[in-house]
């Protein structure tokens, strides 16, 4: 791919945010009027553990260039241990995505607490940049979801 095309490439990123921490951080970033990349679309889930492999893989299969899963810091999960499960599933998913020929950086799991509005902005913006550099996802077998 030449440079020009890369520059024009607008990645499509899905952000699965846990309701209790990261979604609140996104709100704080918003009310602090931070500039955040529109490439990421927020999908609110109650807990990062709700994000299962089906959801992630289907999202990739349908052409997402990147997926961000973000929840409460370890120990802070509103439901006790959900984010530990999310972390385990993430480790597995990383392997699966790689075996599909997707760069593993396209999937990112992170912890952002409710007071970390600026970190939310940083994470989203740098993730967008990273995905933009990687270019469009090599898989897109868009089915009707």
């Amino acid at each position: 791919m030449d440079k020009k095309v890369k520059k024009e490439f607008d990645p499509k990123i899905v952000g699965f945010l846990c309701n209790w921490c990261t979604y609140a951080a996104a709100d704080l970033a918003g009310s602090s009027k931070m500039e955040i990349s529109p490439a990421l679309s927020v999908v609110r889930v109650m807990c990062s553990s709700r994000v299962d492999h089906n959801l992630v893989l289907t999202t990739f299969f349908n052409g997402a260039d990147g997926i961000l899963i973000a929840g409460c810091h370890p120990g802070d999960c509103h439901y006790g241990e959900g984010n530990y499960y999310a972390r385990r599933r993430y480790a597995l998913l990383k392997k699966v995505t790689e075996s599909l020929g997707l760069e593993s950086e396209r999937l990112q799991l992170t912890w952002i607490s409710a007071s970390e509005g600026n970190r939310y902005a940083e994470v989203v913006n740098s993730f967008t940049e990273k995905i933009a550099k990687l270019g469009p996802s090599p898989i897109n077998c868009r089915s009707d979801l």
Partner: protein
Amino acid sequence: MKAKVGVYVCECGPNIASKVDLDRILETLPALDEYREIELVVKKYGLLCSADGKNYLEEEIKSNGFTHLVLGACSPRDHNKTFIGVCKKTDLNPYLYKIINIREHCAWIIPDKEKATEKAISYLRGGINRVLYQSSLFEKQLDIDPDVVVIGGGIAGIETALSLAGEKRNIYLIEKSGKIGGKSSRFSSLLPRQGKGLALIEEKIEKVSANPFIKVFLESSLESIIGFLGNFEIVVKSKNGNTDIKAGAIVVASGYGLIDPLSSESHSYSESDDVYTSLEIEEMLKEHGKIMTKSGKEPASVALVHCVGREEKGYCSRICCNYMIKIARYLKDQSDAIKVTEFHKGLCMPDKGDQSFHKAMAERGVEFRRIQKITQDGTKISFTGMDGSPGNADFDMVILAPAIVPSEDTDSLAELLEIPVSETGFFQEMHQTTDPVATSIDGIFVVGAAHSPKGITDSIFFAQAAAGRILTHLIPGEKIVPEVKVTEVLEAFCTGCQNCLDVCVYGAISYDESKGVSVVNEVVCRGCGNCFGSCPSGALRTKHFTNPQLYQEVREAIR
């Protein structure tokens, strides 16, 4: 019936209107091909959350007879409840509505108006598609049993029972031993600010026997338990048979034990040495009225050794410093001539009256020695001071403060009740700071020293806290309304692998042997969705957050 979706975008004053081209939204959405099959009403309004806005919305829902509603406005954290309230005033089921956050997620973070508008349209399309996949959910009301079972008749269990018992609430107090009162009733006296002798404990014990609404089961234990908040069924095993009890809540107050000092490498002694545990001294004084050596003499010098077994257990037992000073006072009260030395590793006296007690005893000649390390062999003690200098001494008597450990039945109770035990071996609370009396099972509470090492005062506070939870949540004659956005099992898909059972920290899932499938208890489930990801067969469905619903949002995100 053809779906009729109302879409209302809020100007939020200039907040959204100046950053997102609402008129373009109004033009774009109805013109989209994909909405041919449905009826779409798209309008904008100044401030939907204002009193006028809410009335307007209510009128619009009613007059248009919407089947679904989508709002493009602010964060659900701000106003989801507001608009659910509006829906509830109409025939529209609140779970057929969705708020889309085009303020925090578009207007305020995307400076380019065109881009912000595109993003808002994309989010709204996701929202419209999602509501079409949403289903009505209905709140349920469940009858409850207000009675309470208390396990353990120490001070914590007693206080729980006394705070709760009444005409409309029976308390079943299950005690393992032959009498209630717990460890505290074995002491000689309590701390200075806790009244004379054991009066406070004895009064409470009497109140229990006088209370017609408290039924005490002595020499009894918990045999089995099933059920959930408001509806537990318990079997109590006593000498003369089993009793079935129905209760709405269970309070665990099974207390503590003391570590065996000999299990610590730093301590050794034999039967014949004048070495005692703190509890033995309390009992000796209570029984004989005097603290004496084995040869029947008053000791001339006594060493009080704090923190026995603390390193091994990995926590501070919180109350030892305090009661060791109390024991120093026993000795000084007996005879001012007794030389008392306390070896401690930093005094932990977290209650406001403690320091002055310490000071008073220091003034009466008790020597407090802060040390780094100590080894005790019989009545011989060698230690390392804070400056690293070694020392040793021989005493007539040594009194040890063994670490407080969970009562011996903790593990078996935890297994019966299906509540977790923490790293330290005590019962694990729901949340360290914000929910300390609750456990992971709704309706089961843990109080007193069964929760963590604590004195009588804190044991009582914990007991009252559990009572506070029960008094405000299990009101006789009233019903409880469980969460509706919970997970369900699609039995046809469930293979019975039981993967999901361990995942749920709330113990909401059980396995139905007869059907060979798992069952989610809707009353217990909080709808986190964690189990969902553990099911290899796609047999679980977390209501209002199903995959088809989330896919609708995803699809628009990556369009």
